[in-house]
């Protein structure tokens, strides 16, 4: 891809080129979240439960970012893949094998396969119709899960499966120490994968499709096939998030398929910023921790506070909090360089 090779000429300042390929570099926000995650492991032992929830949501938001932020696939039904991944991992643990890593793969594959099939339908249309279609698919799957009691347990939820220790050594504990490290490792893996993906030629093609699919088609890009591929990948990652959730929680219920979850993860992405991967981290952290604290302070009206946060975020950081932190970081670094 010739487009990608930009050689700096003498009259272009280096920073500008670097800035236009910002996603290649590790910004301050990247360093910050990973430092925070490791800090949390050593110093915030009591918060590992919450930390695990944050990480699961980050993985889900990452998968949504690949679909919406990078490829312009407008999905408001991503919980479907999360839920299918969760149910698949739980059923696998219940009926086949209790080994968690295989369970993750099964969850991811099940959700990815479902993403492939529904993608054939969803990706034929764009815009509002696409949004409605994803919601509709979500509603159908939720209904199936509620009614098909012999498999999913319906409204009682699916429980009673055991998850074996990870690698045969580290079993899940009440305090969530193992769960936290486990999900953090999966997150690191998923993040690395997503990063390689979006910075590859494939990733640039996706951004091209997002911005102007007509033009990409004229350039000879098989748009439909590319979109189907990323939609399946995104679904599989969401499924992995669901599988972790099923394994660390020890049960799956229909709420993992709910529209509410689809909406929440989109809100996380809005808060953090789309099309930049780190947005998922920032949004996930802010959303989950804020919800947790707000609900502890006022169990009746915490949703009201959450709404307030969203209004503030949209009003003052319409691109999300992520770019804003990076700008602040750039500003600080510049000041240090030029005294």
């Amino acid at each position, binding site marked *: 891809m010739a487009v990608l090779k930009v050689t700096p000429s003498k009259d272009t300042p280096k920073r500008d080129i670097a800035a236009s390929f910002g996603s290649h570099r590790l910004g301050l926000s990247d360093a910050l979240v990973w430092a925070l995650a490791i800090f949390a492991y050593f110093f915030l032992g009591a918060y590992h439960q919450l930390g695990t*929830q944050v990480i699961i949501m980050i993985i889900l938001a990452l998968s949504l970012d690949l679909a919406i932020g990078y490829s312009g696939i407008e999905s408001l039904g991503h919980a479907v893949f999360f839920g299918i991944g969760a149910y698949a991992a739980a059923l696998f643990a219940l009926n086949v094998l209790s080994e968690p890593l295989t369970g993750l793969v099964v969850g991811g594959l099940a959700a990815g396969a479902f993403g492939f099939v529904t993608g054939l339908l969803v990706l034929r249309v764009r815009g509002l119709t696409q949004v409605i279609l994803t919601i509709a698919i979500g509603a159908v799957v939720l209904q199936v899960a*509620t009614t098909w009691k012999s498999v999913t347990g319906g*409204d009682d*939820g699916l429980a009673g499966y055991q998850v074996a220790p990870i690698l045969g050594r580290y079993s899940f504990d009440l305090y*969530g120490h193992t769960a936290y490290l486990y999900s953090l490792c999966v997150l690191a893996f998923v993040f690395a994968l997503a990063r390689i993906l979006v910075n590859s030629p494939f990733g640039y093609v996706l951004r091209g499709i997002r911005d102007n699919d007509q033009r990409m088609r004229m350039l000879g890009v098989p748009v439909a096939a590319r979109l189907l591929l990323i939609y399946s990948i995104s679904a599989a990652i969401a499924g992995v998030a669901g599988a972790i959730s099923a394994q660390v929680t020890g*049960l799956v219920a229909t*709420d993992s398929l709910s529209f509410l979850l689809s909406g929440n993860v989109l809100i996380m992405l809005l808060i953090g910023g789309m099309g930049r991967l780190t947005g998922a981290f920032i949004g996930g952290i802010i959303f989950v921790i804020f919800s947790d604290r707000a609900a502890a302070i006022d169990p009746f009206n915490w949703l009201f506070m959450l709404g307030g946060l969203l209004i503030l975020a949209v009003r003052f950081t319409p691109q999300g909090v992520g770019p804003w932190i990076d700008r602040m970081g750039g500003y600080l670094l510049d000041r240090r360089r030029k005294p």
Partner: protein
Amino acid sequence: MKRFSLLAFAAVLASLSISTDAHSAEVKIGIIGSFSGPYAEWGVQFKRAVDLYVEKHGGKLGGHTVEVLYRDSGGPNPARAKQLAQELITREGVQFLGGMDFTPNAVAVADVVTQAKIPFVIFNANTADTTRKSPYFLRVGCTIWQLAYGITRYAIDQGKKKAVVFAVDYAPGHDAIAAYDANYGKLGGKIVDVVKVPLDTTDFSSYFQRLQDANADVLFTFVPNGPISVALFKGYFERGLAQRGLQYFGLGETEEAPLAALGQTGELAIGVYSSLFYGPHSPESTANKEFVNALEAKYGKGAIPNIGTVEAWDGIHLIAHMTEATDGKLDGEKALAAAKGYSWESPRGSIRSNGT
């Protein structure tokens, strides 16, 4: 502008860091229930009763200062309930847990409380086998069997021998169906149709049509109090099922509060039977009158207690008793031993704990 946005963000962050446990109490109690969403009435009633009880005892239970932490499951959501229980135990260090409106939520926390050896006083969650899921479960509610089994006999005594059952399609609903079926058939009645409804149903018209088509004399029900119970009652009245000869024999849905909310007190409710063990006017005991008056004095005229209120009241009373026995220290075994065989005078009458 930029500075202002910085300030706004800082304010949000600051609000996050405000901790709820500013003051330290000797005993911490965690209450899990539905405080938001369509089933929030449960949380409202739980909190009213518990707050009133703690206030009445000067902020002390069993001679120890207490702090009650309320956590919102937002309706039937087992995964969330389990996380909340784990966090209350590991992060907040609670000595007792209580609450739970829905059976799936209660079942979800069984492993957690067994592992942590923390007594969990289930307020409601009335599926019969819930308490068997953990030795640390104690329930102050009832079982659906207790309610449903007996009312079938009353229906037979009224000469009603053809019934239709309307139940929500999850564990307690299945209990209700089984209990109705077990006794009614034995006494010579016949259940002609069983209508099972998913928990999150919003449109009931096709289900009501089936009730109408069943051509039965008796309607047996089980639905959790909330949007479904209101919809069921509304449908029953609006379709004139009573005039068609279908008489209502229900459980908890027949409470005063939802009826009042529908404006259906008075004549329409006449002829609706219920086997529920509690109402603001039944029993007509001094304990109950005092309870109702105390609630009204604290929360105003509209604070009509329901089973959630009285269950929470008894639940916190049992926790207070266990706190006294353990002298405010964390000792699950000792607390359970103290609860077994303990009896007390409740607004619903005198009750005794059998240790489960």
